[in-house]
């Protein structure tokens, strides 16, 4: 096992992928029919991979925990998808998208993977249009674009504020076609509990199947295949409150990690700057307001601390504060990018203002996102056309209509601003994969958010959809053949092998153990406690002492979980509390892993901000001399610290420099 071998092809960066495809091994059509592939997950990555593999002729088994593949959380992505089409003639190119993504990721992504991503981005748009995805268009009938953070061009394609939904339904439609044709078998309300490794005659262990729980019957079931692909998303729910869906979890990835797959950069978590602020302790999740709002919305807090205090007490409203007393702090600090700085920068800037006492709501943990200037410039109709559904969503949740005229001072019209605050949104870290998206376990692949490869220490807006679909439509279907070409003489696997017996028994024992704790604490009460620890010590700002405290607190929490958990009901049929407990156990382990990684990385970069390492202006201070690497973690056992393995980064095309969004 050597993560240094990322299998990056030879040649100049722009030719690597072409070279790879020209020389890789393929599987002929007759042999594809003999090979089975398991794809776990039906989000953008999972659904696109499952349908494309089936189109090629492989037999696909596809799993999701929801009641239908169409529910995966990719569906909630609002703003858009990036591509280097340069339809706007504004100077975009594959190289510029590649460059922006590497820079946005604060120079911690693998260069060759990102270049490939930028390269195939254009194919994704073609593919989705052909599927019938109703992207926004201009009156001339051609596709429309908008801008997103971290870019100076308009390269984001969108379908109202529902781009993720439309792209996912596109992938779901292709998947449905393959289900109808019998090439994909779809298993809904199934949750993967373990990956099954089988030792070949040559002594090599390979991923040959999974154990999945049928959530309706409560029974463990076995599935075998020639290769296993996990596309199971990120681990944001370790924080309890996040923008992730309720069922998003890290258990499939943790199962792979425990079986020997390395976990890379777990500390790299994205905190999205524009979410609706937390309102109370009964809240179950946080709602994102699309980054696209930053195209026309301006972020501010009062200049005067007295105004902030009055806002916190509810004595005045945002619209009472006139233009000259507002501090548009992003425009002030980052004149070149203004409100469209990358997410990590915008989030930290909001925290900085709130820490100084300028927060604008009763908790002091909110800033304003204001559309007055845009409404005065464009009129309410145009603004509503662009963001109407987001305004409505905001009003439904907060009872405040952001487009409503609220005040008029000296002829200047002020509309109700939104209140926003950063929240956990996306995880850049994930299962380590090589250039072929294969993990350190042979035959086990990881795609989409659940791998680590393309976003470095911070993901740019509208790039998650791009990566999920790039992996599923255009990368994995090629690279997996390089592996499967050696497997054509291996017959269909039986799930009666002793390895499957052992794996299933272990999964069942784990469930029995949870049921038998019979303590007093509910799953959610422990999960909320986990969330507090995570946000407090491994959140937007971290330091050595806090991270060490977090590791101790997480060990204590694991003990509480192991000894005082209570799950009502039994294992016959559906038991929602049991399934939540299974996931929580892995979130606690994940939290510890994140803390170890954050503690190791003595620098600030992207979403990882260590308070000890900042400039005088409060900007992140990277340490390229010591930390220009991917930090990979090797599982050593439940109560042991993981072992670190390093993949050094090598940049050929891009000069590593300090990120600058000021000029």
């Amino acid at each position, binding site marked *: 096992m050597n993560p240094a071998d990322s299998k990056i092809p030879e040649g100049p960066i722009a030719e690597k992928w072409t070279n790879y495809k020209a020389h890789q091994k393929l599987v002929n059509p007759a042999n594809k029919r003999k090979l089975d592939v398991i794809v776990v997950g039906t989000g953008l990555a999972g659904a696109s991979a499952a349908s494309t593999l089936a189109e090629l002729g492989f037999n696909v088994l596809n799993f999701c925990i929801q*009641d*239908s593949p*169409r*529910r*995966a*959380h990719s*569906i*909630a992505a609002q703003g858009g998808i990036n591509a280097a089409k340069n339809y706007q003639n504004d100077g975009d190119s594959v190289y510029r998208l590649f460059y922006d993504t590497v820079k946005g990721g604060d120079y911690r992504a693998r260069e060759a993977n990102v270049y490939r991503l930028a390269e195939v981005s254009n*194919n994704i748009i*073609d*593919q*989705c*249009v*052909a*599927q*019938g995805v*109703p992207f*926004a*268009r*201009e009156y*001339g*009938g*051609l*596709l429309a674009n908008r801008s997103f953070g971290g870019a100076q061009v308009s390269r984001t394609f969108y*379908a109202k504020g*529902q781009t993720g*939904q*439309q792209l996912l*339904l596109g992938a*779901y*439609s292709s998947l*449905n*076609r393959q289900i*109808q044709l019998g090439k994909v078998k779809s298993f*809904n309300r199934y949750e993967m509990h373990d990956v099954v490794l089988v030792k070949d005659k040559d002594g090599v262990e390979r991923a040959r199947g999974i154990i999945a729980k049928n959530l*309706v019957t409560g029974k463990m079931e076995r599935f075998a295949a020639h290769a296993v692909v996990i596309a199971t998303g990120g681990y944001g729910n370790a924080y309890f409150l996040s923008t992730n*869906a*309720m069922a998003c979890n890290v258990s499939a990835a943790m199962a792979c990690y425990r079986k020997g797959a390395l976990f890379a950069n777990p500390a790299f978590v994205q905190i999205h700057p524009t979410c609706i602020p937390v*309102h*109370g302790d*009964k*809240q*179950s*999740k946080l*709602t994102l307001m699309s980054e696209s709002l930053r195209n026309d919305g301006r972020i501010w807090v009062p200049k005067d601390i007295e105004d902030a205090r009055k806002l916190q007490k509810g004595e005045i409203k945002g619209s009472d504060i006139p233009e000259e007393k507002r501090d548009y702090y992003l425009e002030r600090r980052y004149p070149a990018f203004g409100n469209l700085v990358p997410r990590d920068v915008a989030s930290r800037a909001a925290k900085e203002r709130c820490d100084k006492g300028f927060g604008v709501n009763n908790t002091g943990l909110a800033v304003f996102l204001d559309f007055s200037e845009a409404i005065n410039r464009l009129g309410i109709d145009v603004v509503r056309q662009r963001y109407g559904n987001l305004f409505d*969503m905001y009003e*439904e*949740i*907060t*009872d405040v209509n952001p487009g409503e005229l609220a005040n008029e001072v000296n002829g200047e019209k002020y509309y109700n601003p939104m209140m926003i605050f950063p929240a956990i949104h996306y995880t850049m870290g994930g299962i380590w994969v090589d250039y072929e998206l294969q993990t350190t376990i042979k035959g086990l692949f990881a795609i989409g958010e659940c791998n680590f490869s393309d976003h470095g220490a911070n993901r740019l807006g509208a790039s998650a959809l791009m990566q999920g679909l790039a992996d599923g*439509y*255009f990368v994995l279907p090629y690279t997996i053949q390089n592996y499967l070409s050696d497997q054509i003489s291996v017959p269909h696997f039986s799930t009666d092998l002793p390895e499957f017996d052992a794996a299933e028994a272990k999964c069942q024992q784990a469930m029995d153990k949870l049921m038998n704790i019979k303590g007093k604490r*509910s799953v*959610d*009460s422990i999960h909320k406690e986990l969330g507090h620890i995570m946000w407090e010590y491994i959140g937007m700002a971290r330091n050595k002492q806090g991270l060490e405290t977090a590791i101790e607190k997480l060990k204590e929490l694991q003990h509480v979980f192991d000894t005082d958990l*209570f799950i*009502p009901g039994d294992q016959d*049929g*559906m*038991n929602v509390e049991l399934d939540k407990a299974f996931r929580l156990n892995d979130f606690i382990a994940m939290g510890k892993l994140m803390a170890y990684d954050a503690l190791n990385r003595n620098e600030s970069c992207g979403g990882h901000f260590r308070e000890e390492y900042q400039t005088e202006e409060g900007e992140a201070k990277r340490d390229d001399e010591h930390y220009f690497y991917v930090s990979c973690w090797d599982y050593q056992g439940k109560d042991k610290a993981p072992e670190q393995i390093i993949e050094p980064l090598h940049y050929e095309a891009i000069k590593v420099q300090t990120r600058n969004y000021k000029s």
Partner: protein
Amino acid sequence: MEDSIMKVNLKVWRQKNAKAKGEFVTYTDVETTPDTSFLETLDILNERLVEEGQEPIVFDHDCREGICGMCSLYINGHPHGPATGATTCQLYMRRFANGETITVEPWRSAAFPVIKDLMVDRNAFDKIQQAGGYVSFNCGGAQDANDLPISKVNADESMDSASCIGCGACVAACKNGSAMLFVSAKIGQLALLPQGAVEKDRRVRAMVDKMDELGFGNCTNTGACAAECPKNIKLYNIGRMNRHYIAAKCKE
């Protein structure tokens, strides 16, 4: 935003599994706030039930921001509750009165059997989509996206139809248990685009026939589906689908 406490009574359908006989159980004095969502209020009640050693109420939910289509619930006689243009997860307690008794049922339709408590099986919707809700082409074969200009009017209208989240509220609202709005939304999305035109006859026949086969009722133009749709899918989709279906059948 106010922090005032309110109390409601929840009259909830409980059913152990598909075969068991169900019943209403009323839980009184559930403490919540006007700014808490309806599903969070169910969470609060569930937390109380777990503390009492009882099994929590099972209900489908996931994204909790109104887009995944997972949440359902028939609340006080309306799919997704009293708010219009919003799903159950986007429903906030300020819509209810302090002390109110709120009745919560699962989707009521023969095509959506109950799995447990408030959770139903909507697999029939997937089957209809599998019958023809796609453009038949393989990944990699597409032309450049801008080689195919599409009028903005058609693209926007297609987008409106494509907004359907597949939650099943239309079926639950319909006295006939008809899935016409759901099916016609997909038909409409693809019928308005040149990509979908080539196989539009085949598609409409396959999807409508599958819908009938799965036991969904017929449409009698009551319009409850569109009135209750959380995504405001328009009734004219059904008219368009009928027109396409008749034309396609005539060509058979």
